[in-house]
């Protein structure tokens, strides 16, 4: 089976965000594989181990994303592709990203493409379904279970707490929800092997794409921090007095119950 996992390099979830002059400061921040994409990589490896085939991890971004791709290779992916847009594009949106990714994938005959259901930075969750639509294949988002039998697939989707069982067929794009699996940590031999695995780097030219074909449709004009919250009130006295004061405050002052 020909399996692709889409991977994005993102800020570590433990990082504090600092905004300066309308931009996120990246200096000194730790970067990771977007946690939802980690589920995608893990699932791709498990599907390959069960059904055979090859896992390619694909990322879009700058040279720095090589590190996250090497991590995915160390987890067990076979090959990596980095589409480096650093020199060609100043700004991208989901339209641009999905266009570039689908342009790369269109002649790859992927049986299964797995992405995270959302990236924890931009948080739009658009790129997976957009890529599927551009490739003309079906997609199922926010999956928590995937079983493949020949070209049939049975999936469980998380829909706002409900679970939907879906039957469909390959080729297919799915996006991973938490609970799909437990991503493995790269082993030491895995890390050693990953250094020798192929990592191909491409630019827009290699995909026969012009910059204006992938020009963003939307524009970020400012980035800012949420307003600081004033310090709250920690109640005092007997616990039972505190509780009745709290319920009273929620009712009378905050008017939320």
């Amino acid at each position: 089976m020909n399996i692709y996992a889409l991977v994005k390099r993102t800020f570590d979830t433990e990082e504090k965000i600092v905004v300066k002059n309308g931009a996120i400061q990246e200096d000194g921040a730790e970067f990771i594989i977007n946690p939802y994409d980690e589920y995608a990589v893990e699932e791709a490896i498990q599907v390959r181990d069960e059904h055979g085939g090859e896992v390619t991890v694909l990322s879009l971004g700058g040279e720095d994303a090589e590190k996250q791709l090497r991590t995915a290779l160390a987890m067990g992916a076979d090959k990596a592709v980095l589409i480096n847009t650093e020199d060609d594009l100043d700004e991208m949106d989901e339209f641009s990203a999905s266009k570039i990714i689908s342009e790369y994938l269109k002649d790859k005959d992927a049986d299964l493409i797995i992405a995270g259901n959302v990236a924890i930075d931009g948080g739009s969750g658009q790129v997976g379904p957009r890529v599927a639509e551009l490739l003309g294949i079906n997609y199922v988002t926010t999956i928590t279970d995937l079983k493949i039998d020949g070209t049939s697939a049975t999936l469980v989707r998380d829909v706002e707490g409900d679970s939907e069982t879906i039957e469909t067929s390959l080729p297919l794009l799915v996006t991973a929800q938490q609970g799909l699996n437990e991503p493995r940590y790269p082993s030491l031999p895995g890390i050693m092997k990953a250094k020798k695995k192929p990592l191909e780097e491409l630019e827009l030219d290699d995909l026969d794409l012009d910059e204006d074909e992938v020009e963003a449709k939307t524009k970020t004009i400012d980035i800012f921090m949420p307003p600081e919250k004033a310090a709250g009130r920690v109640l005092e006295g007997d616990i039972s007095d505190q509780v009745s004061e709290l319920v009273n405050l929620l009712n009378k002052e905050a008017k939320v119950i």
Partner: protein
Amino acid sequence: MSKNVLVLGEAREGELRNVSFETIAAAKTISGGGTVTAVLLGDSVENLAQEMVHYGADRVVTVEHPHLKQYTSDAYSQAFMAVYEQEKPDAIVLGHTAMGKDLSPKLASKLSSGLISDVTKIEGEGDAAEFIRPIYSGKAFEKVQSKGGLLFITIRPNNIEPLAKDESRSGDVSSLTVDITNLRSVIANVVRKSTEGVDLSEAKVIIAGGRGVKSEDGFKPLEELAHLLGGAVGASRGACDADYCDYSLQIGQTGKVVTPDLYIAVGISGAIQHMAGMSNSKVIVAINKDPEANIFKVADYGIVGDLFEVVPMMIEEVKKLKGSPAV
């Protein structure tokens, strides 16, 4: 220039969800005096059309088909695109719900348009409208503009105030017949986990438990309190990882991002990744035995104490407040 805007209403178990009315309000802001047309898709939705008008839609177009009874991206995109072709709107607004998240990128891709997802606030009106959306799960915000062409946004439930309901409003309701074919996904089964039917992303009140709740049983009082307040139960990653509850309840940077009117954090220390998911709630209450817990930094009200003592007392107090408990 005034814009004609298409919004998609969303029903759950035969009733329109609130977010439907919020999309109308958002559409009004964007339209700059243009027409707001509501689209309703389902196997039987015509009876819901008037309510969309009462909340401000100028017109309603319904598409009824047996294949639209349950949402699938293939069926809904075919029906919505048929309405799009008929109406040729300048802008589209959907709710950023499970359905909206799944459907909107497919539509945007078909339309070769941009898509501004998960908008929590609109500044300005008409052509000058700018859209605020959380990034890094609410650790920061960005302001986004469309660079032209079709404007397409999804709005986060519970953030944009709907217009007041006015039953004297009237509007034209028409239906469109659409041939729906070539469905690639079949929904074999649906298991409803949310017994109360209050979805986390739309809940006005959320009672969330953390590691401090200690067990699956420990969540029971939280459920009772949530039930009393008409809210939903959520959890921290710690509680989910420890198997006290299902991952579908997880709130945080991984998990759901919520903005209820009232968020009660019970036995949650307030890891940065959890705070990203809830710190924009309107009123936050923290109950924790550790006075140094981070959660108190974002809480409007805090009680330092044992949750197993505090939560049952709260249940009693709320019962008192609401009069005798519902039978």
